[in-house]
């Protein structure tokens, strides 16, 4: 602490801004991490409310609550917002808080740019949400923005394109910052192969972001010029091809899937060893598996397009490369289970979420393998089976890992232990709610119910009603989580520096709550 106080003097005699100005101008990685996490939490409720509206409409066949075009706006915006303003910012928030603490750095490499990376996101969110009030409503063509539908929309479509540009800018700057911090600011002695798994997964995620976000920017730029400046990239009359958009989009889109899950792998790989009181099993293989997943992710994109009419050779290539990804992913799941094997395990809330992650993410992984089979996928394309699949990997995968990470590091951030009974209640309601929503969707999809349609045939009613009930259980139990977080910030048992008995790593050597400036003098790692 005395070190921190001294450095504070040395850095300048300016008064630190307070109130709103503190948050607008902050260059502190902990402040910015908190901003990311609160923004993500807020948007979780916004985009989650859209999901509840969708599920309410689908409670019964026929049209109940809304016009079909508004339903399409909701599904589109739910997807865009959950991906770009909930899951991605949450992981970036973790990176901001944890990467400097875990590698013994005084802050991120570029604190001002770090601030800008965050403050571009509310701008993008305003543009997306504001478009609900524009003539013609918000974008309604699905989050994937396929032409020709996307070419035909109104004002909000252009606003969405520019919003995607701004979110891309934010991601690229954020990733350059994270990658530079990891490569250049590790404490002396912290070799790459000694880094915590969370840091490794973010290093690779940041690489994926820098490689793919510009491609997405290029794709939506072509949409913009096709819409407004007379180009014919996606119009066969001019020699273009609408399918080309899908190729470029999914060249971004598939690595994006791993952008949404690799940091989750990192968080889980921190938590399971702590509560098993054993080091991570197969650390090196974890690193190589993560890198393999990242590299393979650039070779699988067209498995999203099996039904579009590709040459058979292409279908076979993308089918096999997709199945190949199951190998490194299997390595990871094996290592997590082997870490728990004969461990001295306890089941605090972070561990419960981590174990649920391993089980439920694996279900999502297996349904992904089913969809990887081209002949099967042609049957299941655009059915609820796909919806079930990606919600198993994104809700019980990405989102559960975020919950697990919050429970795990919240004592370090706030200095207080959370209420374990409340945490466990939140866990069980979330797990039961989540499975009640998405498990029946497998059956709906196999029976042929198409996604993104506000009405359905009578025989699908039962499973849809179960899913809607589950959605409300899951949605409202997140309010419990909000209460828990607020309570932990204000009160709760005092957390020790190490917080968890089995926790290892630099972040557990600083006081709880972590002081505003940490590691101004780099620690030495042996």
């Amino acid at each position, binding site marked *: 602490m005395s070190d921190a106080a001294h450095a504070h003097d040395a850095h300048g005699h300016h008064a630190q801004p307070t109130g709103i100005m503190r948050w607008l101008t902050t*260059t502190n990685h902990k402040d910015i991490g908190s901003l990311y996490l609160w923004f993500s939490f807020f948007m979780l409720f916004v985009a989650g409310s859209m999901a509840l509206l969708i599920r309410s409409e689908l409670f019964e066949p026929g049209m109940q609550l809304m016009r079909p075009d508004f339903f399409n706006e909701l599904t589109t915006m739910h997807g865009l917002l959950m991906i770009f303003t909930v899951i991605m910012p949450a992981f970036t928030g973790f990176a901001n808080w944890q990467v400097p603490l875990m590698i013994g750095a005084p802050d991120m490499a570029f604190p001002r740019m770090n601030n800008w990376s965050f*403050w*571009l996101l509310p*701008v993008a969110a305003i543009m997306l949400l504001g478009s609900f009030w524009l003539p013609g409503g918000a974008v309604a063509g699905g989050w994937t923005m396929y032409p020709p539908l996307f070419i035909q929309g109104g004002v909000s479509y252009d*606003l969405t394109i520019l*919003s995607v540009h701004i979110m891309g800018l934010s991601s690229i700057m954020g990733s350059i910052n994270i990658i530079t911090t990891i490569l250049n600011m590790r404490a002396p002695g912290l070799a790459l192969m000694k880094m915590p798994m969370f840091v490794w997964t973010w290093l690779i995620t940041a690489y994926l972001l820098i*490689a793919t976000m510009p491609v997405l920017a*290029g794709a939506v730029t072509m949409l913009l*010029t096709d819409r407004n400046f007379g180009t014919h990239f996606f119009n066969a009359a001019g*020699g273009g091809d609408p399918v080309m958009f899908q190729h470029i989009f999914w060249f971004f889109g598939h690595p994006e899937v791993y952008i949404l899950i690799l940091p989750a792998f990192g968080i889980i790989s921190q938590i399971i060893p702590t509560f098993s009181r054993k080091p991570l099993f197969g650390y090196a293989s974890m690193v190589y598996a993560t890198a393999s997943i990242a590299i393979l992710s650039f070779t699988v994109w067209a498995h999203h397009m099996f039904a579009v009419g590709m040459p058979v050779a292409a279908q076979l290539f993308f089918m096999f490369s997709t199945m190949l990804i199951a190998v490194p992913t299997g390595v990871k799941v094996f290592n997590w289970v082997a870490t728990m094997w004969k461990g001295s395990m306890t089941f605090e809330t972070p561990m419960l979420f981590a174990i649920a992650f391993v089980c439920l993410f694996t279900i999502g992984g297996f349904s992904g393998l089913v969809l990887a089979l081209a002949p099967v996928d042609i049957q299941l394309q655009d059915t609820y089976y796909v919806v079930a699949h990606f919600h198993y990997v994104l809700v019980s995968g990405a989102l559960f890992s975020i919950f697990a990470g919050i429970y795990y590091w919240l004592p370090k951030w706030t200095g207080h232990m959370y209420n374990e009974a409340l945490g466990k209640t939140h866990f069980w309601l979330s797990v039961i709610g989540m499975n009640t929503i998405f498990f029946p969707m497998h059956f709906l999809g196999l029976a042929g119910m198409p996604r993104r349609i506000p009405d359905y045939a009578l025989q699908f009613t039962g499973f849809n009603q179960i899913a809607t009930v589950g959605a409300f259980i899951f949605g409202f139990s997140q309010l419990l989580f909000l209460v828990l977080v607020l309570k932990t910030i204000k009160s709760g048992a005092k957390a020790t520096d190490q917080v968890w008995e089995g926790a290892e790593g630099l972040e557990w050597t600083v006081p709880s709550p972590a002081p505003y400036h940490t590691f101004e003098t780099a620690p030495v790692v042996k």
Partner: protein
Amino acid sequence: MSLAQTEKYFLPQPSLWPIIGSVALLTMAIGGVMVIHHMNHGWWVLLAGVAVLFFMLFGWFGEVIRDSEAGRFNKQVDSSYRWSMSWFIFSEVMFFGAFFGALFYTRVLSVPWLGESDTMQQLWPTFKAAWPTAGPGLTADGLKFTPMEAWGIPAINTLLLLSSGVTVTWAHWGLKKNNRAQLILGLGMTVALGIAFLFLQGYEYHHAYTEMGLTLGAGVYGATFFLLTGFHGFHVLVGTTMLIVMLLRSMAGHFTADHHFAFEAASWYWHFVDVVWVLLFILVYWLI
């Protein structure tokens, strides 16, 4: 005291510039959409956003330059800048990759497919699915254009940009051996070559639009031609601006023989723009 400070990694004070930048981009986006949809005052909103953006760029970069000249950046900060510039250029490579990918996909795959199917033969019997093309529909509607010839202005532009790569390196040699005159002369020549390139590119576009029927709307050939060369031209403009700033800073006595990463970053960027041009010259102009 000063030694102790430079041992620590430089951490800036809280800054207003990022939020100003966010306001600028929001204003620009709204203004841009208003302009596209012909709403009143759209141009004013857009220009206001651009003005705020330039204000932010001047202010923010100015602050960084002052930090650098005050000796606040130690070796580790320098190293951070090197990593970040490398990754930034990688992101630019991927951005151009999207458009080169579109060129590849249309030329090698989708345009030939347009000539293969029986449906196409029925619809547009006279259509020749060969590059360069404006596509079956536009050609049938009577759209005619002349593709851009490589061995005119584009060849001269290749010469200009390749020479500018040499002059910027010569300037760097001057900087490294403390020869300020060589630095300034080399940078001045590079900037002049960059401006000459932009001038010729503008002339070529004018010619294409007025005399060759080659526009953004000239099918997929026109679209890939203008977006690839246009984004490249924009990058030349940005690179030239960076080099002008380096020229002004060199004249103001900034940089030392062993501490001048801003100059190196600008020259890395310039070489990157050079390489993209060579690819453009071969794939867009030459091989048609």
